[in-house]
């Protein structure tokens, strides 16, 4: 062929018959290659895919294998164990799971940070801790009615609240309030177990010495590793060996090394308080990380000064149609759960986008701090129902929910 091509002009009549035949015979060449192969079943088992499925199961069937009462803290730790005793999905310390339970005729989900070491997944276990939450429908159920042996559906590990050495400093100052200690307890275990490698200083805000969650656990970890340090900050009492008052910029400076990332997890009030503290510390955005799941107080308060209205909610889910009502004071996700509609839900704070749905008609109010929608979705009436409050009758198309029998 080479001789001919070297003379290439725009038009060249001089060509090699063999090369043209080769082109004509491309189908023949392909047929031959196919015919030469074995007639055996097509393989569809790929290690990469089964690994991915082990790391990110869509649902894990678990049972409440033990309940540990947290006396004085109005909280319970649930030890969840895989029903079939297989390993639970590995996770990065700080991640959460979305737990689905059937309460009455409704399926409800709640996100909880995992508080145990990733190591325990090997024998199928993860720990979550649930604190009393006045008026909280699910917290009430878990604290009063859930029993050992009950079944729950647990999502794969979710969220991005974990230490990443390419992003975060080697030194982490963690500010925790109340049950916001859970992801940091997991990180502390992971450091102790050699799974994570960073220095963790936890500034842990509790009301009183008696109400400190996981005090024994934290004490034993700090005895076992120098990389974890815990400073208890009591707001409602003064006691020797404890810091007192709020977690201030000065307090952080007192315990922080020169270079650090600030991780924050706690109740609504803590985040509001920390906004000013972060400003005062002058930290760039990349050094401050917040766990947003389960922070709903402010979201609800953003619709609190309007009178309650009730609207018609029509839901289209695949081939199904549902008619129900929705209050202006609750999210569309809650309205759907109340009506027994199995809607997708994970973070319940707008962030993960798992519940992304399409408004076919109607309007909603979305608190700006919870609006994590994609740019285009904002322009095309796509919403995250977990943070959307109706302001009119709504027709909503939602994806299929994760079913208990999946």
């Amino acid at each position, binding site marked *: 062929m080479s001789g001919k091509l070297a003379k*290439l002009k725009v038009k060249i009549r001089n060509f090699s018959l063999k090369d043209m035949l080769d082109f004509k015979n491309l189908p023949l060449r392909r047929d031959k290659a196919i015919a030469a192969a074995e007639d055996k079943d097509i393989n569809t088992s790929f290690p990469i*895919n089964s690994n991915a499925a082990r790391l990110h199961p869509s649902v894990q069937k678990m049972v409440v294998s033990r309940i540990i009462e947290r006396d004085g803290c109005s909280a319970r730790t649930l030890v969840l164990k895989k029903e079939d005793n297989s390993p639970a*999905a590995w996770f990065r310390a700080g991640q959460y799971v979305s737990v689905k339970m059937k309460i009455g005729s409704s399926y409800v989900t709640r996100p909880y940070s995992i508080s145990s070491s990733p190591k325990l997944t090997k024998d199928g276990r993860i720990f979550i801790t649930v604190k009393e939450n006045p008026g909280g429908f699910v917290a009430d159920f878990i604290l009063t009615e859930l029993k050992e042996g009950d079944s729950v559906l647990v999502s794969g590990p979710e969220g991005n609240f974990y230490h990443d050495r390419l992003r975060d400093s080697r030194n982490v100052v963690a500010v925790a309030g109340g049950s916001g200690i859970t992801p940091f307890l997991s990180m502390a275990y992971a450091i102790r177990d050699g799974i994570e490698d960073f220095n963790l200083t936890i500034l842990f805000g509790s009301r009183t010495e008696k109400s400190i969650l996981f005090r024994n656990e934290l004490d034993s970890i700090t005895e076992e590793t120098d990389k974890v340090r815990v400073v208890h900050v009591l707001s409602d009492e003064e006691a020797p060996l404890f810091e007192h008052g709020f977690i201030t910029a000065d307090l952080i400076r007192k315990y922080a090394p020169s270079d650090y990332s600030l991780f924050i997890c706690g109740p609504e009030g803590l985040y509001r308080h920390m906004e000013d503290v972060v400003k005062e510390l002058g930290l760039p955005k990349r050094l401050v990380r917040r766990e947003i799941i389960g922070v709903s107080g402010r979201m609800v308060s953003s619709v609190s000064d309007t009178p309650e209205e009730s609207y018609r909610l029509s839901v289209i889910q695949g081939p199904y149609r549902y008619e129900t009502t929705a209050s202006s004071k609750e999210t569309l996700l809650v309205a759907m759960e109340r009506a027994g509609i199995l809607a997708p839900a994970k973070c319940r704070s707008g962030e993960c986008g798992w519940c992304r749905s399409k408004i076919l008609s109607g309007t909603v109010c979305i608190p700006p701090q919870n609006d994590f929608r994609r740019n285009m979705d904002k322009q095309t009436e796509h919403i995250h129902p977990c943070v959307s409050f109706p302001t009119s009758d709504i027709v909503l198309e939602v994806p299929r929910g994760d079913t208990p029998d999946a």
Partner: protein
Amino acid sequence: MDLVLPEFDVVVVGAGNAGLMAAIKLLQAGKKVLVVEQHNLPGGCASSYIRGRFEIDPSLHELASVGSTAKPGSIRRMFDELGLDINWVPVKDCFRAVGKYSDGSPMDITIPSGKEELIEVMEKEVPGTRKKMEKLFRLFDEVNAGLAYFSDGTNYNIRYAIKHYSNMLIVGSHSCKIVFKALRLPQKCIDIMSTYWSYLGVDMGRMSFLHYAMMVSSYMTEGAYIPAFTSHELSVALEDKLRSLGGQIWFNCKAMSFLFDNARLSGVRTVYGDIKCKYALANVNEDIVYGRMVPKEIVTPRLRRLSNARKQKYGARMFTVHLALDVSREALGINDYSIFMLGTADSETEYRNIMKGFDSNNFSILVCYNVANPSASPEGTCICSITTFGSPVDWDNLKPEDYAAFKTKCAQKLMTRLKEQTGIDLFGHVEEIAIATPWTFARYLGTPEGCVYGHETADWDDIISRNLQLGKDYPVKGLKPIGAGGPRGDGYSSAYQCGELMAQMVIRELEEMDGTSSEARS
């Protein structure tokens, strides 16, 4: 809840680029169409995700065949004709390539888009190549004209082809490597032109020259574009178009298998139940379709042999570090949209090294979206990705508990190499990081080994040969797999074109079926 599920003319399984486009074309032809998608979003690879104050594109490098408003390419026309107003943003140059030439001398060259511009740059870098490059471009033109002649759907006259497209016929069965040599391009010039191998993930020794010519001349004449609001902009536009045409799209709705009646497709089994339809398009990898979703007795020996002949050589398994940085790209010294960092200028060696695993892989591509699209992220920030290919060697036997540490180690190596080769130092500016591995793509796409390109378009299975065997490759009545693994090859533009092509084939078949059945009635 017992419910009789509605019936459809066509069910499209998978709302990837090809699936969405096919569904729309079918709806426009008056068909009743349902799309079922296993994920909660449209687009497959063409999507986006939110991290903090950033929206990040998980896969797009750039689209071919868009073209300017003045000279629109086929993809721009496709979206224009649907009345979809996409915010297309041009990518100025093709890429900058940094590394070493085959002779060991340093390479640092920026490939402009535009034929004249490239010839100029090449002449400067490798003096004396002007005539040869002009010849190469004339050959591109002839190849494109010839391919258009052969693929316009009408019968072709071989004498006419010999008269007008003889050079296309001559090079038509050969690889890039052979044609480059035949054209006596200097080695340095071959080194530079070989950089395009990674666009298709197939080295120059196995890549069809015709495929290469189509791709490179498209980038040269039409430039490259990205949508301003990430790939999700394209997918959500198609999602909404589909709805406005009366189509349905069910998310989180996995299809398990295809149902047959008398060896003809009769429906699709989904998590909602069995859905009756006359035809199904599967925007799903062929091996999954024929290996898992179609009953054994329906799969022909040729389909099994085809799969086994392909030996599970899937194209491009990506490893990408997505970085949202808290400084502007100017402050980081990033001036190029894409920088290709070569381990070696020889694509065959590069490919072999990549397949050996991460330790011997020295190839990567930096993309900074803000260079083309300043509003890709908030003021004073930028979004970059560093991509290389993953090899099953690394990802097959990794334990879940070692996964995070391994992918972080790989990401660190890519960031370190970027710093060493270009001086661009991203360390200390990372506000958000997400590392996508073949596991990630396997999780979200369900493709074999997390591949994004289907089977490699190489050797006997290049897209030219696939197109010449369109009639043979789809023997199952009422079912066609579509997508990146199909006859148009991989990439967004190819997938949209594939969706359109296959929809047209289905429309014709359905009309024939209806014709036959009405005759039978009368």
